[in-house]
Every structure is written in C-alpha cells, then in structure tokens.
C-alpha cells in the first residue's frame, strides 16, 4: 500500500513536471531556457518510461535526447547567439487563436479520453521486458521483428549525418 501511494506520488510528480515545463518551454522568451525546460520535459518522459517498466526505452530516451539532441540545441543556440526572441505584441490575433486551439484541444481530447470505454485487457502486465527479447526482436527477421526498420534507421542516420555536414559546412 505504501508502495502504491509512493508510485502515485511519483507519477503525479512526473506529470506535473511534464505539464509545467512543456508549457514553460513554449512560453519563455529566452531560448536557452526553453531548451533547458525541454530537457526537463524529456527527463520526465524518460521517467514515465521507467514508470511503465520500459527501462530500455527510458535509457534510450535519456541517451539520445538528453545526451545528444539537447546538446545539439544548446550548441546551435550558442552558435547563432540569438538567445532572446524579438519582442512581439503580447496578444496578437494569432496568439489568441493558438491559445484557443490549444486549450480547446486539450479539453476536447481529455473529455474524449476520460469518457471513452477502453477495451478490456485480460492479462495486464507491468513486467519488465527482458533485454534478451528486445535484442532478438530488434535483430530478428520473423513476424513482429524489426531488422529491416533497424537497418533503414541506420541508413537514415547515415544520410542525415552526411546531409547535416553538407548543409552546415562553410562554402568556400
């Protein structure tokens, strides 16, 4: 029982972090801060994955996002040295409409989610996915296994590496 309360507390903490920092990430005018808030959101997301007992996924999330992508953001922000966004009218029509759409969307989607009847699952499981299974699924070629997308991913990453270098290099 103690565990359950603790876990609930953890979840609400993560949810609060995600909600608050994602809103802050899009409202702050300093981009470096936005990147930092994004980092928090991503950490919290990784926390959610851990919470769901997808430890591998959480680890990947931490490594790729927190370790790679955010570093990239910070570097690019520093490189372009545009920390501050230029001022804009606080309440332009677009801002109002965007606010309306976002809040309306949240309400609508939440309403749907909370009133929807989900299919019943007879064998719910919160068990950790064994590492061996992940490896086999990732490298297998049978039904429900993902060797081909894995290879495609690798090619995509290679291509984007080459593309990134090509685009960003200084032209002589």
């Amino acid at each position, binding site marked *: 029982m103690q565990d*359950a309360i603790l876990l*609930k507390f953890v*979840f609400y903490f993560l*949810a609060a972090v*995600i*909600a608050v920092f*994602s*809103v802050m*990430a*899009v409202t702050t005018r300093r*981009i470096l801060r936005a990147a930092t808030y*994004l980092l928090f*959101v991503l950490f919290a*997301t990784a926390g*959610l994955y851990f919470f*769901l*007992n*997808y430890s591998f*996924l959480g680890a*990947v*999330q931490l490594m*790729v*996002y927190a370790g790679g*992508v955010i570093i*990239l*953001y910070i570097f*690019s922000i520093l*490189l*372009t040295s*545009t920390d501050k*966004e*230029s001022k804009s009218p606080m309440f332009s029509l*677009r*801002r109002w409409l*965007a606010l309306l*759409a*976002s*809040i309306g*969307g*949240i309400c609508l*989607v*939440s309403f749907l*989610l*909370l009133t*929807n009847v989900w*299919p019943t699952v007879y064998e*719910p*499981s*919160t*068990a950790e996915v064994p590492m061996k*299974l*992940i490896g086999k699924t990732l490298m297998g070629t049978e039904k429900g296994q993902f060797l081909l*997308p894995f290879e495609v991913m690798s090619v*995509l*990453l290679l291509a984007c590496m080459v*593309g*990134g270098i090509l*685009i*960003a290099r*200084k032209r002589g």
Partner: protein
Amino acid sequence: MEHIIPMEYYLVVSSIMFFAGIYGFITRKNLIAVLISVELVLTSTDINFAVFNRFLFPQHLEGMFFTLFSIGVSAAETAVAIAIIINIYRNIKSTEVRNLKNLKD
C-alpha cells in the same frame, strides 16, 4: 498485476504536452524555439505509443519499438534541421521566422 495509474492519466499528460507543442509551433518566432515545440509534439506521441503498448497489448512489443524508432527519426530530423538553421543564420544573420522571405541565397 493491476496498474496503479489508469491509462487515461498518461494520455491526458501527453495531450497537454502535445498541445503545448502546437501552441509553441504556432506562436514562436525563433526557428530553434519552433524546433523545440516540434520536439514536444513528437515526444508526446512517443509516450502514447508506449502507453498503449503497455496497457492494451502487453504481450507485444510494437509500440515500444515504434517509440524507439521515432526517437531515432526525431534525432535525425533535429540534426538536419539544426544544420539548416545554422546555414540560414550564416546567410541572413538571424533565425527569426519572419526574416525568412526567400530560400535562395
């Protein structure tokens, strides 16, 4: 084994994140900030994949792997986008959206 937190709660959280990303995508002026918003949107969908996998199809791994690949794709996308932003900055000395009137040099 029962879940402690119902599935809907996760989904509400992810939808908040999603619409925050949408709001940012629409209102932000800086390209990098727009990219950050996109990142939020993508991450929120990742959460949904994982949650649906866990709660609705616990015997399968598709959702989890989709998340995995999605993380990879978004990382690649970020890399290219930032390369483009740096290139733009080099050309017009700004990363503001409104200054991007034409794509040619």
